[in-house]
């Protein structure tokens, strides 16, 4: 690697992968609970397993984002990291806080956890994805601010590239919009309204800036295409992201007590949200086709192309599928939403982190790229996980269409649980696709230990 301090990224990447494994194991538990309702009950009720599944996702993605930033920023800024020691200290703080939170979820009833962790001082818990106890939420803020300080100081003392600036905007946006997680008014409509300022403006806003900047960085490194060209594309993509995604928040304001005009604003702008993802896909393929060098890390290039395609399918196409208000009236809060959520998170954010890890990890381990054996294994894991995720999404979509029909559209609507029993077959198939995903993930981890003929350091 070019700068010694980039090495702090390594523990972040390792932790990210470890937490990813945990996320998938809990996903399999949840999938089984969908068909064997009392599986692990009352030891791990569904709500607890789901909280662990989604919170581990958020935490591993954040570890990936931080690791990626620590790796990328010194190289972009052409200077050592402002403080590698701070980065390492934050790693341990974040890991311990994250682990304690998960243990808390699993060890005591959620109401007891709320009581013990001072939820009475400031009630922030018990809202989807923002279930973390107050000390954890405060910890996230402290870690995020110290991390941003470290990264920002590095950029300030070094070169300021467009890729760094976009990343900084994404990361600062992430920290700022998280602050809305502390606002929980007693008025449930206001609560929901601002809850989306964290959740939507993260995943359909500022996180896409992080995604775009990571993708641009890896494409510059692996294709050798001129930086001016790539950075121009990056600006076009993030422009499209924010001009569609910000007002696109309106697609969450259809049925929560907010005025009806959001059905127009939300439908129109979120219908345009696939465009930046499509641009990202075209961008990735275009740059790889115009490559000026053959980078030895084929696996990283595969992840880069894959994240564009899968983000477009998952976030773009599956998002569009149910984003128009007249459609969403029937699909809102069904398995259609779950189908979209799974493919979008995997395609956009899991895959971009895996791309960054794939590119950076060999270099952090002292070589330009892994040996053939290791890369072949990694590419197998890419295909297995990606195809498994496509099937998870298809099965959930089928379940969702039937659910909508049986429970909401039919002339004799069935009760929720009756409809659920009728679509069990699809939940079983989803669970088996989940097992295939886990096998892919195991292969992915195995690829780190495959050894073989390592490519020389660049």
């Amino acid at each position, binding site marked *: 690697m070019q700068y010694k301090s980039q090495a702090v990224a390594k523990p972040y990447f390792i932790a990210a992968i470890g937490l990813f494994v945990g996320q998938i194991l809990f996903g399999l538990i949840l999938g089984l609970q969908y068909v064997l*309702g009392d599986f692990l009950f009352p030891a791990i009720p*569904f709500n607890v397993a789901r909280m662990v599944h989604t919170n581990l996702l958020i935490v591993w993605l954040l570890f990936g984002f931080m690791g990626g930033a620590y790796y990328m920023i010194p190289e972009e800024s052409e200077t050592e990291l402002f403080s590698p020691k701070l980065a390492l200290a934050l790693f341990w703080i974040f890991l311990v806080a994250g682990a304690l939170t998960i243990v808390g979820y699993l060890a005591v009833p959620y109401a007891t956890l709320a009581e013990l962790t001072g939820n009475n001082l400031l009630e922030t818990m018990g*809202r989807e994805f923002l279930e973390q106890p107050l000390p954890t939420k405060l910890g996230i803020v402290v870690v995020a601010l110290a991390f941003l300080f470290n990264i920002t100081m590095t950029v300030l003392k070094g070169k300021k590239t467009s890729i760094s600036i976009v990343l900084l905007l994404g990361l600062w946006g992430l920290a700022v919009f998280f602050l809305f997680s502390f606002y929980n008014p007693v008025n449930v409509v206001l609560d929901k*309204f601002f809850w989306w300022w964290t959740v939507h403006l993260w995943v359909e806003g500022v996180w896409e800036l992080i995604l775009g900047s990571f993708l641009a960085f890896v494409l510059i490194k692996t294709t050798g295409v001129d930086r001016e060209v790539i950075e121009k594309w990056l600006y076009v993509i993030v422009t499209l992201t*924010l001009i569609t995604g910000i007002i696109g928040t*309106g697609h969450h304001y259809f049925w*929560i007590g907010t005025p009806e005009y959001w059905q127009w604003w939300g439908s129109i702008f979120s219908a345009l949200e696939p465009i930046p993802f499509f641009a990202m896909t075209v961008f990735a393929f275009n740059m790889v086709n115009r490559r000026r060098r053959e980078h030895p890390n084929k696996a990283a290039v595969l992840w880069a192309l894959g994240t564009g395609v899968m983000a477009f399918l998952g976030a773009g196409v599956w998002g569009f599928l149910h984003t128009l208000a007249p459609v969403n009236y029937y699909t809102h809060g069904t398995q259609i939403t779950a189908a979209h959520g799974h493919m979008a998170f995997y395609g956009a954010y899991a895959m971009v982190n895996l791309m960054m890890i794939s590119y950076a990890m060999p270099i952090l381990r002292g070589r330009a790229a892994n040996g053939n054996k290791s890369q072949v294994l990694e590419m197998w894991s890419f295909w297995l996980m990606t195809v498994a995720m496509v099937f998870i999404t298809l099965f959930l979509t089928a379940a969702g269409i039937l659910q909508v029909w049986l*429970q*909401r559209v039919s002339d004799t609507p069935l009760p929720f649980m009756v409809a659920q029993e009728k679509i069990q077959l699809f939940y079983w198939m989803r669970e088996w696709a989940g097992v295939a995903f886990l096998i892919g993930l195991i292969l992915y981890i195995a690829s780190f230990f495959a050894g073989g003929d390592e490519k020389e350091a660049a």
Partner: protein
Amino acid sequence: MSGAFTKSMARNIFYGGTVFFFLLFLALSFDTHSQLPKRDMRQNITPQIAEGKKLWEVNNCIGCHTLMGEGAYFAPELGNVVVRYGDEGVKAFIQSRPKDGIPGRRSMPQFNFTDEQLNAIVAFLKHVNSINDANWPPNDQG
């Protein structure tokens, strides 16, 4: 992407576009806030409803159920559950959950709520049901 369209033009459009659309979003949000009092029934919120919302949160009900369509999709929508079961039906259902679940079926935990707490939860759910949410869900099944 011809040569005429430069990186600095792209950058300027990015900043300009983002600021414009963020301000538009703020303006729409501001307008929404002026209209909400007519829709969110805030004038009816009592300490009991507030207590019900807190119980909803600290027991992580959203981890299985949806409320106005938001949450998890493992268990039924509760924004209109008072329409399906009635006040007493909701309370009876929550109270009657077996501690060890129902063999083979999706099981709701037994929370051991007091009568006062059950009343608060129902008051909260009735309040949610009274919110003007553009006639969602499509039918009483949620």
